[in-house]
């Protein structure tokens, strides 16, 4: 069974809390430290890891993840490094689901089949491609299936009924519910009609629903997760590793504390 499915099958929200997925831009502050820090964040309570592949033109991302990608690219981080990082996380955590989080061009250029094959061999479980909407996914399905990888679907606030039906029909693993119109990044508050939209999606979805975008602490996590199965936190964590040029011991401590705070709020 795919580790994502295994996780949700085994996870009892009453004892372990709802799911906390963290997003981490691979290569920040360095490739070596990425694996080390992600392993610590899992120990601190992160349930699922989205491993971000840096891209030169991240149109769906706000300033924090843009900056992280830029720093990673200055370090010459490639898809091969991301796959190697996957293997290092897998050595330490044999059950934690790992999602490759990427823009399509990086995968397309390296080769869709090649990427999926190497990622699956390294212990990866699922793929999320930000700029590959339902209409364009046909071209990768065969390769996904071949390597037993789930494709994580995104649902946006603007997604209408007919699209929603198509998306849930091909959903596997979990659905990523984007909470706001906009790019990734921290926000002071979430939209008022969010819970309605989440409830509607949860009612239709055959797989768990996690809410992401704009969730930066225990309070926003609790609100976002109220009617679904958990949250995804990205920028708030990545930001900790951008604060100082030489990412200090404080960064990882402070990121681990944030994970603990959010996990606590989900329990």
């Amino acid at each position: 069974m795919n580790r994502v499915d295994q996780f949700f099958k085994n996870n009892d929200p009453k004892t372990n809390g709802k799911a906390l997925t963290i997003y981490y831009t691979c290569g920040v502050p360095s490739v070596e430290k990425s694996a080390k820090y992600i392993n610590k964040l899992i120990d601190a309570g992160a349930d699922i890891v989205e491993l971000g592949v840096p891209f030169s033109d991240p149109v769906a991302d706000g300033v924090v993840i843009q900056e992280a990608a830029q720093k990673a690219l200055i370090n010459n981080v490639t898809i091969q490094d991301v796959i190697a990082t996957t293997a290092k996380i897998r050595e330490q955590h044999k059950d934690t689901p790992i999602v490759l989080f990427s823009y399509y061009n990086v995968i397309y250029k390296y080769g869709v089949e090649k990427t999926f094959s190497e990622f699956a061999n390294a212990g990866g479980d699922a793929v999320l491609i930000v700029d590959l909407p339902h209409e364009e996914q046909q071209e990768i399905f065969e390769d996904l299936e071949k390597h037993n990888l789930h494709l994580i679907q995104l649902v946006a606030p603007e997604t209408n009924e007919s699209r929603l039906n198509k998306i849930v029909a091909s959903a596997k693993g979990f659905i990523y519910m984007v909470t706001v119109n906009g790019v990734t990044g921290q926000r002071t508050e979430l939209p008022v009609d969010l819970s309605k939209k989440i409830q509607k999606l949860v009612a239709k979805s055959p797989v768990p629903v996690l809410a992401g975008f704009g969730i930066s602490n225990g309070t926003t996590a609790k609100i976002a997760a109220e009617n679904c199965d958990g949250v995804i936190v990205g920028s708030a964590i990545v930001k900790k590793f951008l604060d100082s040029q030489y990412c200090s011991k404080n960064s990882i401590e402070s990121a681990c504390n944030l994970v603990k705070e959010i996990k606590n709020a989900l329990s």
Partner: protein
Amino acid sequence: MANDNNKTSGKYGIYGGQYVPESLMVALEELEKAYIEAVNDDNFWKEYDYYIKDYVGRKTPLFYAERLTKYCGGAKIYLKREDLNHTGAHKVNNTLGQVLLAKRMGKKRLIAETGAGMHGVSTATMAALFDMDCEVFMGALDVERQQPNVERMQLLGATLSSVSSGSKTLKDAMNEAIRNWVTTVTDSFYVIGTVAGPAPYPEMVKRFQSIIGREAREQILEKEKVLPNKVIACVGGGSNAMGIFAGFESDEFVELIGVEAGGLTGSIHDSAASINYGSTGVLHGCKSYLLQDDFGQIQEAQSISAGLDYPGVGPEHAHLNDIKRAKYTVITDEEAIQAFELLTKLEGIIPALESSHAVAEAVKQAKQMTNDETIIINLSGRGDKDMQSVMKYRRDNPKQKDLL
């Protein structure tokens, strides 16, 4: 062309498509539906025709460049004078169409990206004319090298956002425009300036620009009684080229030539020539040729011409290249500058640096042709905006020898 009531095909061979975040898909669905309704509505075209004639000043002349022809001593050269459009370039053919569509859809705010500033000026002009809000995204480097256009946009009432990420040029302006669109998608209309982006943009922009080719075909038949041997246009994203190619694409004996920017040296590491030096990839919503490294990171394009300084190209151009219906060549900065100087001195027409690339290619080709053959150059814009760039270039690079 629209092939059924609700959808365009959106694909050109393996190119095109809709590679955007889910947050934009509903906006694209709505746009496509509104676009197809509009182009099937006579009233939409009545309004478009009214403004294109009385406001933009079409039709633009097809001018026989007699002195340039004599200089080359070969084929007869005609210029399709898109530089004479209101706002000084072909861009307005498209912005007028898109903004009338935005108005029809009830949108109150326009977003645009711009490289040389011509599309930004054109969108800002439409925003003034139709009383809409307008925000234009422009790379910080382009803001610097196209100052007159920055001032025009501001005078027209647009908000100008200077983009300092990445290469600080058109690609980054487009990233920021897309980010802004994702955030304001319910009330804003994104006016894309070229035949790229997600479907239906490439088709829609071509449709509005095809007026160039339609007119040029009629005009050349009137003047020469035969079709031209070659049609030559510069290609950044490729909207002016697609516009003029559209008039001749079914005339299989008319050679279509797109001219890419070769930058300083015209080499693979130093240009904006995506078709000549790029490989297939996905950027800004469509699959096409891109300048990128082995790991799919987009490379910075390089050209003296801000309007061609883009590491991608419209998907239909990629397809026309692959099926060999069009040919794509490369012209360097120096050749383009010499063409700029040449046309100015011989014909009293100061071409945009973008269009100068097409002029340079035409001069080279005309010399190899006979005097019973003809070439049409799409003179896509005027060069007032480029005076500073040309002067600076010439200070740094004195002319060594005649290349044209």
